[in-house]
């Protein structure tokens, strides 16, 4: 009003505005459309990016400078809808959008799938916030023959619509510029028209689908991995290659190099000779004794577990980014249904092979409370994490193939049994198996390197201190005679029921802290010849089924409450010891020697 002659398009944009807090911008969109990539591009902060729906299950915040203004960027879990029956990760996003904590919404869409994105757009419109629509992966959409009239769509909706290829940084500058032009959606949808009808009409008007120019190989691979005749051999091949990388290269070659070479030949003798100058025997032992920080704690964490988790994280990253893991859901759906879950549960279960703690959080993608509880229970019970898995392979691979098969057979049988019973005893329902399969893609080396590097760093930051604390604890227990007391007290169980040497009790104590720490202890016991083959199989089976590590337990408590946490802890411990006892009895009765 004060400047009647200004032409509308030339009105200066307010770059600096006084606010009580930075402008809060939420990235919202369907699952697996690239919200986290855009978040990383805007804020410079890396959050895990993968090629499956449900990588992000919690809100992440970061700062970005747009023009001269500092903004809070919020990355959210993917949603297919904001109304109706939502899973817990979807509720996180809905609550954020509804609460007013997001002042501006950047809807990220997979350009291939305009119709579905627009269905969400029409639901976002109901909240009346300034919105921008980003059509991400526009290159893939074009390869599939999808052509979108971006300008027409922007004019119709009354909001900026931006084409982007976020992984390459294309469209990001345009997005930053457009942030000042965000507006609430025009008009919205007329009464009586459903979101689907509206989206159908919009997609029809602004999108044309021509012939596909998708790579033949990509198309072939996507089909080959999901059809049983080709898919099952591929699955076996993938498992075998994983075993070669983690079980052989990681657990044998690299561990050998680090443990015998670096630590055995150089570091430990060097630390010992250095420590010899320390006049106090107590301090000397604390550093380089049997339970020494260097000779035990560091050696376990760096020489035995680190090579294994590193190779595992690398292989796992490749599988995550390729889009392969969700396709396993098709094969496993029937089995999971018998356990009160559905094929979607394959995601947290496979993620559990990386880290059960993270996987416990990923159970948020499951639709009903019953499914989440069963999945959390099965993760705590039977799914061995990467480090544990590889120590298992390291020990039993040297015994025999049958030993390995016995362990996995028993563990899988117990999981199915417990799942089967839980499905019938626990109240509630399972949900339908309806799952989106992301396109198969060649993993991007940059993302793979960043992700693996960050995970290894996370492992070192998370595990190394606990290994050291655990070692200090063992040292203290040993000094005050506590280890002997524990060994004595648990003798009826450890030696009587399980038929293990009393020293194995120590390893189980370590397993309470971290299962991989316990497994590493077992690795050394087996190598020093302190375990017979039968004992190794029994001990590792118990360790695999044994209590979740401290971090996992805390995550269960955080997600499901203390009562559920304690109940799972108690149940799993009894189950593990009971199974071990039966297995020990059976193996001895039939004089199995492996």
């Amino acid at each position: 009003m004060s400047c009647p002659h200004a032409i509308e398009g030339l009105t200066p944009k307010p770059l600096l505005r006084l606010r009580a807090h930075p402008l809060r911008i939420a990235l919202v969109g369907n699952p697996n459309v690239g919200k986290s990539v855009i978040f990383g591009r805007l804020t410079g902060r890396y959050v895990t990016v993968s090629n499956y729906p449900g990588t992000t299950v919690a809100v992440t915040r970061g700062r970005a400078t747009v023009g001269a203004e500092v903004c809070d960027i919020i990355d959210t879990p993917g949603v297919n809808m904001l109304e109706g029956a939502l899973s817990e990760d979807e509720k996180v996003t809905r609550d954020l959008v509804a609460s007013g904590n997001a002042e501006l919404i950047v809807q990220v869409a997979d350009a291939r799938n305009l119709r579905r994105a627009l269905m969400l757009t029409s639901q976002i419109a109901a909240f009346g916030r300034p919105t921008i629509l980003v059509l991400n992966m526009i290159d893939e959409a074009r390869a599939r023959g999808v052509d979108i009239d971006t300008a027409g769509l922007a004019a119709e909706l009354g909001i900026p619509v931006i084409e982007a290829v976020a992984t390459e940084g294309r469209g990001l500058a345009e997005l930053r510029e457009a942030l000042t032009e965000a507006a609430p959606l025009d008009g919205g949808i007329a009464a009586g028209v459903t979101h689907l009808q509206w989206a159908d009409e919009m997609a029809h008007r602004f999108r044309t689908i021509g012939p596909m120019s998708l790579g033949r190989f990509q198309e072939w691979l996507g089909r080959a991995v999901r059809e049983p005749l080709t898919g099952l051999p591929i699955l076996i091949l993938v498992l075998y290659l994983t075993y070669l990388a983690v079980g052989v290269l990681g657990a044998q070659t690299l561990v050998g190099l680090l443990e015998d070479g670096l630590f055995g030949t150089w570091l430990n003798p060097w630390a010992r000779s250095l420590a010899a100058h320390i006049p106090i025997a107590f301090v000397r032992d604390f550093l380089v004794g049997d339970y020494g920080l260097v000779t035990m704690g560091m050696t376990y964490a760096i020489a035995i577990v680190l090579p294994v988790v590193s190779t595992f994280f690398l292989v796992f990253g490749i599988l995550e980014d390729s889009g392969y893991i969700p396709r396993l859901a098709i094969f496993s759906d029937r089995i999971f249904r018998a356990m009160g879950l559905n094929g979607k549960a394959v995601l947290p279960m496979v993620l559990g092979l990386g880290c059960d703690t993270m996987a416990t959080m990923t159970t948020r993608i499951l639709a009903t409370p019953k499914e989440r509880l069963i999945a959390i229970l099965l993760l705590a019970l039977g799914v061995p994490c990467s480090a544990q898995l590889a120590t298992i392979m390291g020990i039993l691979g040297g015994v025999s193939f049958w030993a390995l098969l016995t362990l996995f057979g028993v563990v899988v049988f117990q999981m199915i049994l417990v799942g089967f019973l839980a499905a019938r005893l626990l109240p509630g329902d399972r949900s339908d198996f309806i799952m989106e399969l992301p396109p198969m893609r060649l993993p991007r080396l940059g993302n793979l390197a960043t992700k693996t590097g960050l995970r290894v760093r996370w492992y070192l930051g998370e595990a190394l201190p606990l290994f050291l604390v655990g070692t200090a604890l063992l040292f203290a227990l040993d000094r005050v005679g506590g280890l002997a007391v524990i060994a004595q007290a648990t003798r009826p169980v450890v030696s009587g029921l399980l038929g293990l040497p009393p020293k194995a009790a120590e390893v189980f104590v370590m397993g309470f802290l971290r299962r991989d720490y316990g497994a590493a202890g077992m690795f050394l016991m087996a190598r020093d010849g302190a375990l017979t083959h039968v004992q190794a199989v029994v001990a590792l089976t118990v360790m695999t089924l044994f209590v979740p590590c401290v971090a996992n337990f805390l995550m269960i408590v955080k997600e499901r409450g203390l009562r559920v946490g304690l109940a799972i802890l108690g149940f799993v411990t009894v189950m593990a010891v009971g199974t071990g006892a039966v297995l020990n009895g059976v193996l001895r009765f039939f004089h199995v020697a492996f």
Partner: protein
Amino acid sequence: MWPSEGVHQLSALPAGARGRIVRVKRDLTPRAERLAALGVGPGARITVLQTFPGIVIECDQTELALERVVGSAIWIALE
């Protein structure tokens, strides 16, 4: 049964079949709602890609895996 000619349950269709969704059966579960959120609703075009061990369809450039029960709630007019 759905009365008209040429309309089938998705779960009864062979791989390779193409058609348009004419109806998604509503019941007390959020099934129809979840499907709609994925773009699987009346009017949508689909292609059946696979029927075993689970049903896989393509709808709107996206592959979706469904269990049989879900497929039997979706009615398709073949093209």
